[in-house]
């Protein structure tokens, strides 16, 4: 059995690792520290070593017995007791894949006072919830979450592990995959299974959305991927549905190198871009910063988030957190309304996968029209006010009838 190794040139014999090892595999004998065969490669000691004196490249030499791995695990991301939509979506997708593979779906839920969230996870399709409730888990923490989830994975051996491609998920997933020495595919937009080989076919955009690639991970387990929000379909929740709650026996380390100490909420953006069903986005074609108010008003009457092209951010008209495109964020709303955005390839890369694209631009030859389902040729200053008026009328009618 492969195991971790202590790098004797770096080890200062502080014995921190002895105390954190859940398997009692690290021993000290005559002033020599070594790891014995009890090691399960959980890796808890690695992140606890302040001297980087534990090597885990040996992980790779231990090929997992693929047939031991069964079931689908989902990262139950939560923040302040709220579960983001992507977890519901992953449950819907996980359920679909599990049906094909004849297996079940479990969720690993970390946090504090997590009881009230479990019912919701069952309602959206979880069969099992691994609940780890601890005061130290109140806030997301990469190293602690990675430690604990790796232990849950090694104890339960899921064949597939899905994580939402949120900021937290995208930070946590590579840390866990790296520790487990397994493959990880980022930002998937389509998942299929080869039932016979039990292989997960993971499709994702590459090269700024110019190419789609289908990736597989044939020899390592679990098969891990992050999935973009808004891509998969959740099932209708059934709050009478129940499942099994398991409280796994895991080591929770107290010695953390990263600590959250505060949060500054973005007050300008009422709806966040990643969650938005509708995004109204502005580019240089809005001509002056004052016209951003028009864009905001239009967004408000649609309940939409406000996005921007790189040009506006670079000009200092709006903060970077609004930037959509290659050096900003990628979005996938139901409706994307591009106002005065010409449609440079770098911008298209961040919004092309929106389900319905409306473009408003005075230049009929703007490249944005090539990807738009509906294109409006004209001046922003005339069209957007007309749209605001029209939408307000419609809403009135809709509410009254």
């Amino acid at each position, binding site marked *: 059995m492969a195991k971790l190794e202590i790098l004797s040139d770096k080890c200062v014999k502080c014995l921190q690792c002895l105390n954190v090892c859940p398997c009692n595999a690290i021993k000290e004998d005559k002033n020599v520290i070594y790891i014995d065969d009890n090691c399960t490669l959980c890796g808890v000691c690695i992140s606890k070593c302040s001297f980087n004196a534990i090597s885990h490249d040996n992980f790779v030499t231990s090929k997992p017995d693929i047939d031991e791995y069964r079931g689908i695990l989902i990262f139950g991301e939560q923040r302040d007791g709220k579960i983001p939509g992507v977890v519901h979506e992953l449950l819907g997708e996980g359920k679909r894949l599990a049906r094909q593979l004849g297996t079940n779906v479990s969720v690993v839920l970390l946090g504090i006072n997590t009881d009230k969230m479990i019912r919701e996870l069952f309602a959206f399709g979880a069969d099992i919830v691994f609940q780890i409730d601890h005061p130290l888990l109140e806030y997301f923490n990469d190293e602690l979450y990675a430690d604990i989830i790796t232990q849950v994975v090694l104890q339960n051996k899921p064949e597939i592990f899905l994580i939402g491609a949120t900021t937290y998920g995208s930070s946590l997933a590579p840390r866990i995959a790296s520790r487990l020495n397994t493959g990880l595919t*980022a930002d998937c937009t389509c998942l299929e299974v080869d039932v016979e080989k039990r292989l997960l076919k993971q499709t994702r955009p590459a090269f700024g959305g110019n*190419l789609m690639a289908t990736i597989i991970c044939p020899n390592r387990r679990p098969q891990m991927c992050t999935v973009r929000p808004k891509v998969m379909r959740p099932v209708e929740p059934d709050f009478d549905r129940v499942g099994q709650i398991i409280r796994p026996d895991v080591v929770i380390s107290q010695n953390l190198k990263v600590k959250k100490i505060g949060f500054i909420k973005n007050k300008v953006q009422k709806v966040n871009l990643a969650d938005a069903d509708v995004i109204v986005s502005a580019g240089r074609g809005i001509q002056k910063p004052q016209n951003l108010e028009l864009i905001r008003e239009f967004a408000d009457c649609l309940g939409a988030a406000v996005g921007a092209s790189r040009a506006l951010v670079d000009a200092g008209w709006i903060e970077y957190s609004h930037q959509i495109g290659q050096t900003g964020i990628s979005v996938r709303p139901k409706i994307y309304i591009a106002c005065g955005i010409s449609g440079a390839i770098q911008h298209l890369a961040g919004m*092309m996968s929106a389900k319905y694209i409306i473009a408003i631009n005075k230049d009929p030859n703007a490249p944005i029209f090539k990807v738009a389902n509906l294109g409006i040729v004209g001046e922003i200053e005339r069209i957007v006010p007309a749209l605001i008026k*029209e939408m307000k009328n419609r809403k009135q009618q809709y509410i009254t009838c």
Partner: protein
Amino acid sequence: MNIIVCVKQVPETANVKINKDTNTIIREGSNSIINPFDLYAVEESIRIRESVGGNVTAISMGIPQVVELLREVIAIGADNAVLLSDKAFAGADTLATSRTLAAGIRKIGNYDLIICGRQSTDGDTAQVGPSLAEKLGIPHITCVSKIEEISKDPIKCHRLLEDGYEIVEMRLPGLITVVKEINEPRLPSLFGLRKAMQAEIPVWTAKDIDIDFELCGIAGSPTYVLDTFAPEHHVENEILNGEPEQQAKIVADKLMDILYKNS
């Protein structure tokens, strides 16, 4: 403070064209550039050195020509650079890349902070930073938009989230990935260009960094590309000319249709 900054060579996006018959990237005639996100990482490293002193070493894994790109990084202001280049590194996925970079960084040794761009514009995964930190057994913070406190350990950073900024402390040594908001990259200086021309940039092979062939390149990569294809784009598109009021009516019809009818 000793800083290691990771950089990657990527094709210039505007030039990426897909051969529709073979579904592969047409590389001929495409320029290679420093991954745009890495420029912010380079700039931040230089700023930290300017404020607290120390040394900036750039590292990259790639084909031998990437030496020229590293020269550019020295021209911008890095003190040294190292290229990891070996046929055995070819075809690496993010895991194999992280292992290789980790081996190179261990050989450089004596670092306090590693800075990476949030993601590359070609692979676009944002995985190498956290994966590398894990391989080195150090903590990491992704999407850093500001370093508030650098002179003390722990350092204090702002991390960009979907709905705001998280303030996070991290003990060193550690790794951060940075977003565009963090700074405005400078251009190479004349002095820098002269220095870069004379700089000796070592090229380390798998043997030099003592990494097993089984752990790097395609052999060390658990993921494989099964298939690639060109995405389907909207085929139907309708262009509306005419008066704003009429245009607005048609758009409103469509919006109401999508937003309310289906739900």
